[in-house]
């Protein structure tokens, strides 16, 4: 798709999101061509759709589709993905092989659903190595989101699951299937996070440009201007990183798109909330919704800090600094 087509697609999608009740949104997005786009151009699909999910605070589990697709499986409304527990960059579910049966303890985060999924895809540690397992699901499933951002639908899962050993989605080297899935997830999350940060910045700019204290607009105070400029710096960097990862789709670029989005959100949470004054601590102003969303997203598929640690360890192990984003 060229820029023009992307733009048109994105605008059409935004209208659909605005005009469709939450319960029918999944169906509407599928009619709009979400799964076809994901199938044909997964990185572009993330780049078009996930910013809208962030900006409009949509709570659909489309990340499940992205990860399922990256695992080489068929995504759809009845297939769910089990993410590692918050902040962990590696699977927190475990599996043992017992006479042709994979016995698993699933511990992690899932998107709540009205009805339990038919199929579950889960990264697990099998003999200490990450593996991906896909199989039928018969257990119960969280029906509502929990905690600080219940609206977004994220909930913890702690369940036992057994499937035949053949359910391991294997491809090549141990862990590579999981790595590819995680990278696709990082990219989609980065786009969504950047849109959440952009909304926080927009709200803080609107507020400081309109409210007056000491006889002048808040945005006239240099400290205020500099705090907003700092947020803007990390926004610029994070959006270039997401675009670069969409272009190259390599694992490290996707990881860096996520950590830079995390840096942007961290600065945006801190500075924008501060500049909103008391308003930033109400439920009357929309800021709190983005703050909640940011906190959870920052910790999905690895916190910023844990991903940096992984990156640093890989640099040490390789004894060389990777060369990305060539001229």
């Amino acid at each position, binding site marked *: 798709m060229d820029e023009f087509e992307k733009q048109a697609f994105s605008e059409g999608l935004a209208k659909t999101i605005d005009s469709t009740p939450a319960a029918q949104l999944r169906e509407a997005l599928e009619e709009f061509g979400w799964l076809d786009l994901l199938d044909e151009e997964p990185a572009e699909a993330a780049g078009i759709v996930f910013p809208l999910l962030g900006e409009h605070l949509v709570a659909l589990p489309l990340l499940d589709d992205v990860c399922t697709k990256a695992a080489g499986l068929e995504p759809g409304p009845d297939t769910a993905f089990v993410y590692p527990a918050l902040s962990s960059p590696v699977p927190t579910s475990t599996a043992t092989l017992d006479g042709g049966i994979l016995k698993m303890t699933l511990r992690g985060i899932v998107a709540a659903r009205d009805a339990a999924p038919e199929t579950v895809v889960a990264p697990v540690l099998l003999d200490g190595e990450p593996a991906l397992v896909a199989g039928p699901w018969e257990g119960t499933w969280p029906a509502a989101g929990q905690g600080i951002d219940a609206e977004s639908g994220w909930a913890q899962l702690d369940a036992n699951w057994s499937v035949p050993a053949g359910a391991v989605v294997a491809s090549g080297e141990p862990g590579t299937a999981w790595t590819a899935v995680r990278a696709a997830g990082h990219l989609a999350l980065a786009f969504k996070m950047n849109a959440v940060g952009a909304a926080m910045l927009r709200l803080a*700019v609107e507020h*400081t*440009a309109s409210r007056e204290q000491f006889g*002048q*607009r808040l*945005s*006239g105070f*240099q400290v*205020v*201007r*500099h705090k*907003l*400029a*700092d947020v*803007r*710096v990390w926004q*610029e*960097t994070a959006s*270039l*990183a997401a675009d*670069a990862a969409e272009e190259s789709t390599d694992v490290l670029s996707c990881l*860096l798109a996520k*950590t*830079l989005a995390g*840096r942007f959100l961290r600065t945006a949470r801190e500075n924008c909330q501060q500049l909103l004054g008391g308003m930033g601590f109400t439920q009357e102003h929309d800021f709190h919704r983005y703050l909640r969303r940011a906190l959870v997203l920052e910790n999905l598929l690895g916190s910023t*800090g*844990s*991903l*940096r*640690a*992984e*990156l*640093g*360890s890989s*640099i*040490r192990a390789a*004894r*060389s*600094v*990777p*060369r*990305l*984003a060539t*001229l």
Partner: protein
Amino acid sequence: MTVSSPTHVESLASLGLAEVREAFVTWIADNADRLNQFRGLHGDMDSVFAKLSELQRLLYDTGWIRLGWPANLGGLGGTLGLRGMISEELAAAGYPPPFSFATQEVLGPAVARFAPQELAAELIPRLLRGDEKWCQGFSEPGAGSDLASLRLRATDEGDSWRLNGEKIWTSWAKFADRCVLLARTGEPGSGHRGITAMVLDMDTPGIEVRPLPSIAGDDEFCSLYFDDVVVPKTRTLGEVNGGWAVAMFVLANERGAAAWQRQAWMGWRLGTLVDEAPGLDAAVAGEAFELIYGLRLLSRRTLRTLDRGESPGVLPSFDKILMSTAEKYLFDAAVEAMPGRILLGEDPGAASWRGEYLYSRASSIYGGTAEIQRNIIADRVLGLPKD
């Protein structure tokens, strides 16, 4: 195979960046014996500079450093990207940027664009060959961040300008043959509308250069005193009273294109840090890489914009903030990981770390301070109302 003739390098340039890169990397590897003398330079500045000029000359004679410059200026043609690639591969292999490399990217493009054709054709090849060094005479004691308030006076004398006044912080002026200078040609108080840029020969009578020891202990800084210094008007860059455009172009290159070299060097330095400091925290190493990568993306964009002949506008302000953030983070990490060696060590490696740590502090000052970049972003990117 060792490629070492300009005609061969020129023929590669038309093939594309990847091919030239491969050939250059091969050339570096094949010539490791010859190049080894340029690694880890230390000692007195005169000998370091002599070595760096030698490296530059070698790269000129073999053609590599002429890539990305037009033929009428002594170059071999091709895109700006080629220049970025050459500096990147040199850094990746652990070689220092030849002395005038930084000048080349900061002042070279401005002279190429704003000098009269014959002047550019005379000066640029000398810079590329490493025959001469240039300095940047912008700041004054009374005009730092507020550059537009500069006062060094250029009086119109028909065919020439007569200069009186002062400059300060002029890096490496003691070693320089030429200076790209900003002077007041309009009324006092005419701000950015009354400034003219010119190129000055440093051996012109009436210029006094006084070194000002920098925090790193070298002779980088100088104060310049001008007493009736006469500069022919043929040395004017751009329009009379149009010097601000030249200054902004220089700063865009300093904040953006030169930042590309800096990130290449920082990437290499991070590799050496990881190697030399087993105790370096993994998350810190990862974060340093993340910041350098951020700078890489931003400066790559600026380089591409300049390559298309377009103006990057205010965007290099982002690059400049990333550059200082990354550089300070990297050297803070180094000191935290190896405090004993870096702070008290007496080996040449320790002295390099120490000097680079101290110099990294200036990255949020030179080329426009971090606060000034934030002002620019608040004003011109965010468009925040002031009153």
